[in-house]
């Protein structure tokens, strides 16, 4: 039934977008949709219906467990923030002529549809169905990247589609393997995650590993893991900032979510050792590549995008450690990263509106006198930056700390490498802020910058997310802890 409610909300929102006469009405429809989604998911959780089986949901292909609802809640919060932010941001794009008025309807329709498909992906029990939803999110989000219709946007979108979709085909082969394994074991074959979890301990190790490796290729590409990360900085930097926040905060989670689900299955079989090694290897490589790419980076949005790559690597390492504590903090890190990264992209969006080059969209933003023109966004970047590098008392600090502590009990050498790389990434971010935010124009020169008046609705989401981060880092409620512990238990770690 809840699925029907989600679909109905989307239909109403789509109708609102199509019937909407101006930008504000379409935007309101999308904000309303994400708020409704959040309330629905929250109600479902609080009314004690989670975990819900196929019967309660109304379809054998779907289910609701704590991990699913957790991801849905994160996504809906971010979509709400991003939709509110888009109200001011898209207005600016329309004024400057970067976005055609005719594309507006398409933009918001795709936006509403993307949220629905994301939620369906997180609630899909059937892995093939999940695969298709994940694949559709790629296509729709690529459309949102390409909406600006500038050549480099289209190039970035095409690169994104081809890298993600071709790799996702490997995942599909992996799922075919899983199906075949389950068919050999039970005789009928299933691709339902709950079903596979039940019989996973009987799977032969060799073919299960092969299945995981294939699945991993696809979802690694989706979440920007090395060596498939090349599309990510392009797409995230070129997209409108409201979209970048969604791409980084929600879309990357889809890939990691897929990896978590399949890893939970493989963890039951005898081959978890090899698979853990693989995850750790790619995790560390990803963090490494991201850290070294961040050092010379002069483009703020690309820098933040590479930081997303880095955090995906950390998640993989947390997953590879696979102790209950590590999994707990890995799950917490998903939320911490999503919120922090979205706030960073929002702030970067304001700076981009102020300092973007009017001559070429490829040029790096000429950021100077930030504290004169955009003090709010500058502080947003500074606080968000401190949060993402894991300064104490921010949520990311706790998750990084405990993941690394668990890693240290397994391999001190890898811990040392990780610490070095994380330090490098943090230093790169700090260096960028120190060099660009201190640039001051000679007072004798006539100022040529027209101050960009940031609309209130672009500031609100940033304030909200930063407040959430500060509170989230200081207060751990009993409910939060038991909720994430339930996920760990359901994943059987």
């Amino acid at each position, binding site marked *: 039934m809840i699925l029907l409610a989600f679909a109905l909300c989307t239909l109403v929102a789509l109708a609102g977008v199509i019937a909407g006469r101006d930008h504000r009405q379409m935007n309101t429809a999308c904000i309303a949709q994400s708020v409704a989604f959040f309330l629905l998911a929250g109600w479902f959780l609080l009314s004690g219906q989670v975990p819900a089986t196929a019967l309660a949901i109304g379809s054998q292909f779907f289910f609701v467990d704590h991990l699913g609802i957790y991801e849905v809640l994160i996504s809906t919060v971010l979509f709400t923030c991003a939709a509110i932010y888009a109200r001011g941001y898209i207005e600016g794009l329309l004024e400057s002529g970067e976005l055609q008025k005719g594309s507006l309807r398409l933009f918001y329709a795709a936006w509403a549809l993307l949220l629905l498909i994301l939620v369906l992906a997180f609630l899909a029990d059937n892995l*093939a*169905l999940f695969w*298709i939803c994940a*694949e*559709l999110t790629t*296509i729709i989000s*690529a*459309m949102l990247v*390409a909406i600006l*219709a*500038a*050549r480099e946007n*289209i*190039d970035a*979108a*095409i690169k994104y*589609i*081809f890298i993600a*979709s*071709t790799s996702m*085909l*490997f995942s*599909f*082969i992996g799922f*075919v*393997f899983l*199906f*075949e*394994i389950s*068919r*050999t074991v039970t005789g009928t*074959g299933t*691709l339902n995650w709950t079903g596979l979890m039940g019989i996973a301990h009987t799977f*032969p190790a*060799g*073919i299960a590993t*092969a299945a995981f490796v294939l699945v991993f290729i696809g979802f690694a590409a989706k979440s920007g893991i090395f060596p498939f990360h090349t599309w990510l900085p392009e797409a995230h930097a070129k997209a409108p900032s409201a979209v970048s926040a969604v791409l980084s905060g929600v879309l990357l989670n889809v890939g990691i979510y897929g990896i978590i689900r399949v890893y939970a299955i493989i963890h039951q079989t005898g081959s978890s050792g090899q698979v853990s090694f693989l995850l750790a290897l790619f995790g560390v490589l990803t963090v490494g590549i991201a850290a070294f790419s961040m050092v010379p980076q002069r483009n703020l949005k690309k820098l933040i995008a590479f930081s997303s790559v880095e955090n995906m690597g950390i998640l993989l390492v947390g997953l590879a450690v696979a102790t209950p504590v590590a999994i707990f903090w890995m799950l917490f890190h998903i939320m911490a990263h999503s919120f922090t990264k979205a706030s960073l992209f929002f702030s970067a969006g304001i700076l981009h509106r102020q300092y973007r080059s009017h*001559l*070429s969209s490829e040029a790096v933003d000429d950021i100077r006198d930030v504290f004169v023109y955009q003090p709010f966004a500058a502080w947003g970047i500074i606080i968000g930056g401190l949060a993402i590098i894991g300064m104490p008392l921010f949520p990311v600090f706790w998750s990084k700390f405990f993941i690394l502590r668990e890693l240290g009990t397994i391999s001190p050498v890898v811990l040392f490498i990780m610490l070095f790389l994380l330090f490098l990434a943090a230093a790169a971010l700090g260096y960028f802020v120190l060099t660009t935010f201190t640039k001051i124009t000679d007072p004798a020169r006539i100022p040529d910058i027209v101050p960009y008046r940031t609309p209130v609705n672009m500031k609100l989401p940033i304030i909200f997310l930063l407040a959430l981060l500060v509170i989230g880092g200081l207060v751990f409620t009993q409910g939060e802890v038991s909720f994430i512990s339930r996920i760990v238990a359901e994943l059987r770690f």
Partner: protein
Amino acid sequence: MIETTTLAGLIKVLFVAIVITAAYIITTRNLLSGVSAYATQSLTLVLIALLLYGIEGSPVLLAIAAITFASKVLIIPYFIASIQEKIRIKRDIEFHFLSPTTSLVVSVALMLLVYIALGRVMAASAIRDNLFFFGAVLGISLMLMGMMVTFSRKRALTKVLGFLSMENGVLLFGLFVTELPFIIEFLIVIDLIILVLLTTILTVGIDSTLEDYHKRLHRFHLWEEEERS
């Protein structure tokens, strides 16, 4: 009723046809013939599905054959061909990294590799006989060959062809390894059609933004002149 061995023999002949079309897509410089090679490849898959139905008798195979025929033999090739008319790109002569000859050599190596790797992985599972094993190997090889096209060509349209060919590989693999529920095959086709639609429209977008590009360039020069004066 034709005998199973005859059917199996026919399928093997069709395997050869698939390899030929794949090799053709890899090496061709002419887009239009690439599209018809893809349509032929899809038609071969339809025939294989029908022959498999003759052997196994599962009605899902008939449904798969029907949907493959409608989407991949008719709709998608027609769509790509009409887009191509619109943007007037006839040839894609640029190859990154790999020349056609090298690509062919690499494909042969890939096939051998897949054969060995799959032989090891499948040893544990109940893969029924030679024919099915070959089907699986060919499926994955076709996928990898498609991937090579996607990453070694420059034009988005040719990349789409590579991707489509990869997807054919997945279908082939699925046909021979296991019996997936029809709904999944159906959804994949939907996904494929949307992907093709979007990427081709974007390709047209690149073409139409060129004018905009010139405008911006023009503005740039103006600005330069102003500064000089």
